């Protein structure tokens, strides 16, 4: 007997996983909701401070087809338009449902307040004051899953492998961190909602749990990934001085409200040299800003910590206070006085467009295996609109939960021989043994540096080939020899080792897809192929072959055009 048996196993309890659990439970399924960290706390959802895009249409007339048009335009020809349409059409439904659960969307005159964000042509980004969107969303969903009948929440259960027989999912195995117990979970359906992979890059906005587990679990189970070459970088992430307790992407609203001068290490404006204008307002698009900062650094003109300066010194203090009063005090606690010195900023890995390939039911090609949230690829194509990630988590989560629940009466595919799988996993992890201490950290650091330097913003054939070769070596030769010695309780090194295994496979898929896409498009910029090639308006699909090698193939994009509805028709 496996340790647990359930209709639906949800892997990861962020926005997508919690929504999936609620939806599956209300469709009558029994659910296990497992997170390697604490339920509702470990991922990106609780860290998001900004906005959620949805054509709610209360603030200004809007319609989901307009949101879709903006999403598809940002996606530079690669969106799975079926998924993008689902995202945009159902976002307002989920936002209203969250509203009925009292998440507390900001209102003015009784109407849900919506603001403009880059790439949107209509103000449609709702939020919770003040910079509290993610925490409010996470809290609301935590309450819902706690109240949902039939949802078993398990914190500190890290899922390490799926169990699959004949193309059909049977369940999963994982490790209970507190006591090191191997755990087998039989399930009629499994939903991968384990989030993104931005931790693979040296500079990132990631939590400790964004190392790409979902992608590795999917590949190892026989599912496919799509658009893996497209990580999104946020151009002006905070770099220095050390700032704690604040979202690293916090400078964005500052520069919207106040402007801000972007300067290189010589205190000169430089955006002009890349075909855009700064002159104290700095409105250049994200990809150009990121590229310009990295190029200045490569040319030896970076700021001391390897980024650019962002200066507000030209703005009088009363104006700063008026716009950001309480935040100015929090900055002061961090020893930052914006009137006296500039801060340093640099691009950071922030979101992943690519992910598990699913159909409109969020089903993968493995029977019974679903995916949701940032782990899913396709909806955002080559570039994501700001504010589209949280609705993606809600909408895809709800759908995955609803459709997965339909399998609740299916006979389990779990076999008695599978009972020993979880134990074997732990044995394998400790098999070689003795790879104590510093080796794991060194390997992770090397991977993050490699991904940043060669698979990040400046990509070339040479750099990508080098990175790919090295990642393969690390994955197949070096990682196995680093398996840590066993500790019974909260085996942190074992967790690191499992994480690293997943990270290396996820990293390899990003590098491989980036190497094979010999053009520039959206978030993927090749120094040696600067133009966009119309013939490559196609998606790359990755799979793991029987011998453990990663294969890539090209697939036609999924087109499902929708005309923009006249706006009077909204509501």
């Amino acid at each position, binding site marked *: 007997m496996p340790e647990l048996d359930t209709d639906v196993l949800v892997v990861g309890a962020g926005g997508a996983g919690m929504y999936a659990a609620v939806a599956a439970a209300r469709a009558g399924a029994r659910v296990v909701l497992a997170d390697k960290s604490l339920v509702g706390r470990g991922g990106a959802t609780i860290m998001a401070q900004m906005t959620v895009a949805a054509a709610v249409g209360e603030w200004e007339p809007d319609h989901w087809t307009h949101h879709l048009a903006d999403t598809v335009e940002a996606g530079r020809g690669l969106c799975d338009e079926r998924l993008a349409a689902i995202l945009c059409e159902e976002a307002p439904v989920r936002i209203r449902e969250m509203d009925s659960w009292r998440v507390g969307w900001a209102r003015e005159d009784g109407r849900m307040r919506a603001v403009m964000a880059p790439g949107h042509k209509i103000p449609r980004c709702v939020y919770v004051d003040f910079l509290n969107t993610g925490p409010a969303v996470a809290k609301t969903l935590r309450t819902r899953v706690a109240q949902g009948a039939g949802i078993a929440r398990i914190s500190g259960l890290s899922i390490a492998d799926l169990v699959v027989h004949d193309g059909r999912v049977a369940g999963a195995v994982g490790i209970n961190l507190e006591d090191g117990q191997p755990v087998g979970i039989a399930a009629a359906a499994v939903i991968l909602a384990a989030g993104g992979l931005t931790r693979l890059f040296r500079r990132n906005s990631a939590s400790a749990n964004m190392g790409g587990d979902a992608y590795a679990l999917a590949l190892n189970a026989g599912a496919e990934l799509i658009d893996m070459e497209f990580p999104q970088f946020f151009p002006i992430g905070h770099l220095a001085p050390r*700032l704690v307790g604040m979202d690293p992407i916090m400078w964005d609203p500052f520069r919207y409200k106040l402007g801000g001068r972007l300067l290189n290490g010589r205190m000169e404006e430089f955006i002009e040299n890349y075909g855009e204008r700064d002159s104290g307002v700095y409105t250049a698009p994200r990809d150009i800003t990121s590229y310009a900062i990295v190029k200045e650094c490569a040319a030896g003109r970076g700021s001391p910590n390897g980024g650019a300066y962002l200066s507000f010194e030209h703005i009088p203090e009363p104006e700063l206070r008026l716009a950001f009063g309480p935040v100015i005090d929090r900055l002061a606690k961090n020893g930052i006085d914006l009137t006296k010195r500039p801060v340093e900023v640099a691009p950071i890995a922030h979101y992943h467009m690519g992910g598990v390939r699913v159909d409109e039911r969020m089903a993968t090609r493995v029977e019974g295996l679903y995916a949701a949230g940032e782990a899913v690829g396709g909806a955002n194509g080559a570039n994501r609109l700001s504010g589209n990630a949280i609705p993606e988590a809600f909408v895809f989560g709800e759908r995955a939960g609803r459709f997965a629940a339909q399998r609740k009466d299916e006979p389990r595919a779990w076999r008695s021989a599978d009972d020993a799988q979880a134990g074997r996993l732990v044995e394998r992890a400790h098999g070689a043994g003795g790879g104590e*201490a510093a080796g794991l950290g060194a390997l992770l650091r090397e991977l993050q540096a490699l991904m940043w330097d060669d698979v990040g913003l400046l990509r070339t054939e040479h750099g990508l080939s080098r990175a790919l070769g090295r990642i393969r070596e690390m994955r197949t030769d070096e990682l196995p020899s680093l398996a840590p010695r066993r500790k019974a*309780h909260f085996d942190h090194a074992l967790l690191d080792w499992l994480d690293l295994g997943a990270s290396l496979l996820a990293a390899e898929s990003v590098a491989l897809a980036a190497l094979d896409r010999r053009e520039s498009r959206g978030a993927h910029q090749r120094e040696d192929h600067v133009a966009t090639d119309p013939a490559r308006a196609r998606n790359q699909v990755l799979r793991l072959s029987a011998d453990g090698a990663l294969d890539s193939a090209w697939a036609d994009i999924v087109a499902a055009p929708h005309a923009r509805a006249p706006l009077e028709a909204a509501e």
Partner: protein
Amino acid sequence: MSAGSVTIRVRRGAPDEPSRIETFTVPYSEGMSVLDAVMWVRGHVDSTLAIRYACINANACKECMVRVDGKTGYACTSRLGADGALIEPLGNKALIRDLVTDIVPPKERLDAHLEEG
């Protein structure tokens, strides 16, 4: 203490291991947090040093509560002074290993669901 480095003392142990204090010297940078120092040790010296944390910077996950020089606080927002600190697990929660204590709500524990069968 050499220039540019700082010493932290960490109370380690598990229910079945005697408690001990280990000393680590880590590179110092202005404004660094206690968590920065512990993460540096995990990444460079000993990855078995156990601590709970997720968000690192955002002070959102609230998982990293420890005692710093006897005072309870978040490791990620407690600043590390140039003269270092003594870092210990919470005293009022059951110890699991090193800096990890049992902060998981009872209904979110695996054994709560094993019993249900």
